């Protein structure tokens, strides 16, 4: 048991056991409070709601681990969705074929990658602060989207596209499958590749990483490009879930993604952070929101609870760190 615990901690980070304990606690509380919580219908609706926030959080995660931030994720996702919508409408809207969808998806991913690459290039080669660069990109993309759509909705997509947003395969919701594939991809990318290593080294100490022979500038461009691609995937999912695209869809999720990353134990200064604890943190947030919803509270109360929950977790982490420090110093006194 303790060997398994140690192996889990080694593989997925020290935050994981606490977060899983939190998750179990929250699930137990809600299933006691509401008989409808542990039903297939509720779990199913959670599985459909989670991936959207999840994909956006993955897009936020990589820049944060590198010590930055990508505030443009929502509007990058919107722009990618718009690109796909334009292509579909160009090829007949409701009657568009699979070819148009593939073309649109490729272009949407390209748009996401391009906006990310521009940000990455400015951050890497000008040395400007990522918050500022992505903020400017966010304002620009929002403006571009508003300009192209005149603030309206774009809809009229082929009905078979609903499969991506609402369908199930082997009893598992398609959005969840998409999300899990991306999670595995991101986990491998961050923990088992040279790129992931470079990301963490840049987050820890970018100058040391540079002197250590890592190509930091190229890595930074790649980080934001990949983040943009992940935004585009989220944008395509949002398109098929709402069956429409509007610039500003999901705007409220921007800071929630940052919150989820911090909750998942990602170091706000960069350098440390793993995918799996962040996914568990996302599930906790989703459970809190769905559970409160079942009890009749509004989404706004859930938002407040998310904020208070983050503060509580940070305070608990601080207390735990203090306690272990004290225990350590006591042990040292006894030893001497």
């Amino acid at each position: 048991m303790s060997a398994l615990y140690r192996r889990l901690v080694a593989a997925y980070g020290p935050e994981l056991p606490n977060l899983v304990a939190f998750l179990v606690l929250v699930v137990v509380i809600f299933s006691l409070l509401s008989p409808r919580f542990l039903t297939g219908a509720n779990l199913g609706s959670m599985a459909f709601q989670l991936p959207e926030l999840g994909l956006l959080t993955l897009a936020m995660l990589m820049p944060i681990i590198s010590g930055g931030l990508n505030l443009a994720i929502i509007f990058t996702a919107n722009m990618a969705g718009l690109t796909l919508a334009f292509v579909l409408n160009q090829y007949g809207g409701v009657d568009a074929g699979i070819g148009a969808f593939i073309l649109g998806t490729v272009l949407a991913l390209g748009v996401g990658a391009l906006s990310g690459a521009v940000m990455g290039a400015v951050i890497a080669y000008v040395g400007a602060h990522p918050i500022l660069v992505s903020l400017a990109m966010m304002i620009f993309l929002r403006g571009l989207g508003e300009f192209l759509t005149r603030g309206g909705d774009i809809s009229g997509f082929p009905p078979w596209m609903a499969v991506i947003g609402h369908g199930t395969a082997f009893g598992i919701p398609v959005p969840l499958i998409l999300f899990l594939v991306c999670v595995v991809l991101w986990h491998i990318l961050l923990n088992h590749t040279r790129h992931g290593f470079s990301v963490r080294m840049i987050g820890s100490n970018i100058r040391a990483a540079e002197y250590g022979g890592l190509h930091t500038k190229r890595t930074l461009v790649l980080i934001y490009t990949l983040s943009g691609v992940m935004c585009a995937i989220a944008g395509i999912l949002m398109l098929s879930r709402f069956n429409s695209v509007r610039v500003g869809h999901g705007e409220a999720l921007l800071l929630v993604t940052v919150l989820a990353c911090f909750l998942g134990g990602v170091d706000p200064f960069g350098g440390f952070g793993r995918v799996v604890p962040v996914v568990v943190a996302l599930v906790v947030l989703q459970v809190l929101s769905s559970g409160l919803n079942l009890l009749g509270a509004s989404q706004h109360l859930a938002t407040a609870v998310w904020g208070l929950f983050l503060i509580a977790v940070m305070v608990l982490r601080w207390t735990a760190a203090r306690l272990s420090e004290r225990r350590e110093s006591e042990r040292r006194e006894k030893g001497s």
Partner: protein
Amino acid sequence: MLSFLRSYPTESKLLVVLLLLCAGLAIASPDFLTLVNFTSLLNNNSVNVIWAVGLLVVLIAGGIDISFAVAASVVQYLCVFAFAAIGGGNWAIGFLFAGMFGLGLGLINAFLIHQFRIISIVVTIATFNAFFGLLMFFSGGRFLYNLPSWWSVRVILWEHQTADGTWAELILPVAVMAGAMLATWALIQRSTTGRQLFAFGDNPEGARRAGIPIWLMQSIAFGWCGMMAGIGGLMQSHITREVVPNALVGRELEVLAAVVLGGARLGGGRGSVLGCFLGVALVAVTQNGLNLLGVSPFAFNMVIGIIILLAISSSNLRPASWFERRKGDRT
């Protein structure tokens, strides 16, 4: 002049860009360089400047505050109920209450940051969600129109009828903006506390070892930002004559962009009141110019985004160095 360029490189560059922009707009549009346009620009952007100078103090002290715009909304609601409870109130009580409520919300941030050693962006994102969620929950998203008359009736400080019959006027928020700028300038440039804030923002550990009380620095920075947020909220309701719970969400990032554009550094230790004003002014004048030139309002954000991106990309240029090199050539 040269010493100004050297000590305020971003501000002087911004000033040049702003003057060029104004000159261009004055030629392109006859409506730009008029008293009416100028005063309405001041009226419409005074609240942003009030928030900007509050945020500036936090940035100088090495922090960041995402929650202040939502805090301003919370203060507006608290004020409506507080004024109703005391049966009316007046401007003096209004400023006192708004300032105190804002200060209180700011001190919550400062307490969490200092006591539990949590980095400010985490705390303020958490309080952003907590404030906003609780505000929407308790207000039910309802708008409030029943403001006391002293609050909602427009206070005109100065007015002047131009030759073509339109009125140019300055309203109370402009005076409050000037007061906020002056007070912030006095705090950061003319007081010992201000020097300590810069030192703390530049190197927290060094400041701590030099004997600067860290908790006091955090409290002053976030308390000041909260107070300005509250006063800005009071002014914003004065202009719009209503209190809308979700009207100010999202403004925090616009103000942040303007402040950083004005030379404040994310990471602390640098920034000026003049820069804040110029940062807000550049965005405002650009928007105003696009409007006067008949550009579609849907394109405004696009252009502003490009301008900020260009401003960042040129941030490695240092005007003072050009003059120095030229001087070196001669001798």
